[in-house]
């Protein structure tokens, strides 16, 4: 481990870290926001479930590097534009979470759903204030997987020259020098751990009823 190299390059590494953070966080959020309505549609209309899940599955099998290369042609962006990364990872997150959201809504016990209807909830309000809150634990679990997978996928974009922690791996390979590679792995793990913790805490705060202890 060459600490001198790390010291000399601290500023560069920090800027890559910051870029990595938002390149992984933004698509996770956008993917979730898109997955909520699409997942709700897949849950609500059985015929759309198979279609949406199949498309999502196919989307997820596209290699990330291929998507990074193809997207500029489709979006009209330049190859180095970080927008390509954001769009590609948003699609991956969406692909992962549509099914999670649909299945999470399906996990809400039917009597609860029925009693919401019987009380006089309209469908959208029932979805937003009864079913979605109850689906949070399952959606949260899926979101953790998506967030962590985004942290590692962002690194691939280094091959295109988009600056983020993946650059450390390139530098390491090019110089046959392990310090940046180890630093890159440690920082990626750290980012993933931070995301994971944030989601875990958010889910806990949003679901106080799951920890209510029995007084019986």
């Amino acid at each position, binding site marked *: 481990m060459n600490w001198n190299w790390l010291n000399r390059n601290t500023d560069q590494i920090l800027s890559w870290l910051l870029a990595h953070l938002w390149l992984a966080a933004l698509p996770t959020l956008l993917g979730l926001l898109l997955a909520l309505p699409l997942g709700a549609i897949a849950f609500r209309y059985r015929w759309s479930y198979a279609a949406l899940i199949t498309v999502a599955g196919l989307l997820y099998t596209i290699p990330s590097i291929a998507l990074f290369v193809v997207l500029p042609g489709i979006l009209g962006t330049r190859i180095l534009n970080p927008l390509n990364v954001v769009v590609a990872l948003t699609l991956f997150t969406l692909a992962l979470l549509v099914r999670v959201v649909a299945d999470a809504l399906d996990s809400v016990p039917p009597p609860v759903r029925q009693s919401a209807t019987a*009380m006089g909830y309209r469908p959208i309000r029932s979805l937003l204030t009864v079913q979605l809150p*109850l689906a949070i634990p399952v959606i949260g679990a899926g979101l953790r997987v998506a967030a962590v997978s985004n942290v590692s996928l962002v690194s691939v974009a280094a091959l295109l020259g988009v600056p983020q922690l993946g650059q450390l791996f390139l530098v390491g390979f090019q110089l046959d020098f392990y310090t940046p590679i180890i630093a890159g792995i440690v920082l990626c793990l750290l980012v993933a751990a931070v995301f994971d913790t944030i989601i875990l805490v958010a889910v806990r705060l949003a679901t106080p*009823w799951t920890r209510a202890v*029995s007084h019986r």
Partner: protein
Amino acid sequence: MINFDNVSKTFGEGDHRTAAVDDLTIEIPTGKITVFVGPSGCGKTTSLRMINRMIEPTSGTVLIDGVDTRSIDAPTLRRGIGYVIQNAGLFPHRTVLDNIATVPVLQGQSRRSARATAAELLERVGLPESMGQRYPAQLSGGQQQRVGVARALAADPPVMLMDEPFSAVDPVVRAQLQDEFTRLQAELGKTIVFVTHDIDEAVKLGDGIAVLAIGGRLAQYATPAEVLSHPADDFVADFVGRDRGYRALSFTAAGQLPVHEEPTLRLGSSPARGPAPSSAPVGEPYWVLVVDDARQPRGWVDARRLTSGRGVELGDLVLGGSLADPHASLRTALDAALSSPSGRGVAIDADGRVIGTVAARDVLRAIEAARVNAPHSPGQGTSPGAGAREGEADPAAAAVPS
């Protein structure tokens, strides 16, 4: 008043069509409990859910106070109808208070005032106010069911639909909930449609009983006493079961039963003249009724097993069975006699004090007397409800005498 006019519901299509409800015509009276009872697959829940349009009829009309339910926006209609579902169906993510406040909040009331009303309702269904801040998972099944009833009552709807509300709790809690429900209904006088597969529950709670057969055919619609004493057809007779004769005793008051004098022994005291009188048959237990200072019955003691000079303790007692109070039915009186170790059923007054004992032979005599004085003979239905046979649901016949 709720009317089903020639209501049918079929599920599936083509060859897979099955009738859940078949041409149901029935009039449900205001302020009474009407029970839909029948085996699974008889369409009782489907019928219930057609009242608040959770299920739409394939044909026919459901009217509430003369208004076709289809003319009312479904969510608006549902907010005006209380609904209690099996297992309560509470919202797990809301506190008990917020669960109860659901419908008032949907109707546009402020959360604050809805919670205040909810707190009062909590007390009304027999739960402490402190429970309001808990989540449903922190409540027992019986408590959840009470909250379910409170939630249905929150907007003070004139009509309540109850779908097997007490079937998921143990028998002791169920009996308790049924009793409290009866008491609550006596105060509130709601129009209640109650679905159950349990004929005992139907008989206990219903002012009128609609017995539904598989395929959604109305087999009989009458008072509980009528269903038990004059089942309309073989299906009803079979469904009502073998014990129906015994169950029917529930509807005959025990008022005229002779009450025999019963010597009692106070808890803590010893028999004045030794353990047992010499006149008592040797070799058999000699049962003496033991009461407490308030003359309330505590149990029976075999006087032969008492050592003289020592007071009777709780540990010596054989607990008696049920008690017959002055308002009890012949069924309760007979049960009191049968479940007592001495064969003599303890009769109590309104304050729970012992007034004597009733004997099984007197109950049997009372049954004989009631048969002689019966206003009608079997097979000839005098109640309007007895007319509904073989699915010929004559609207005029399908009304429960109130």
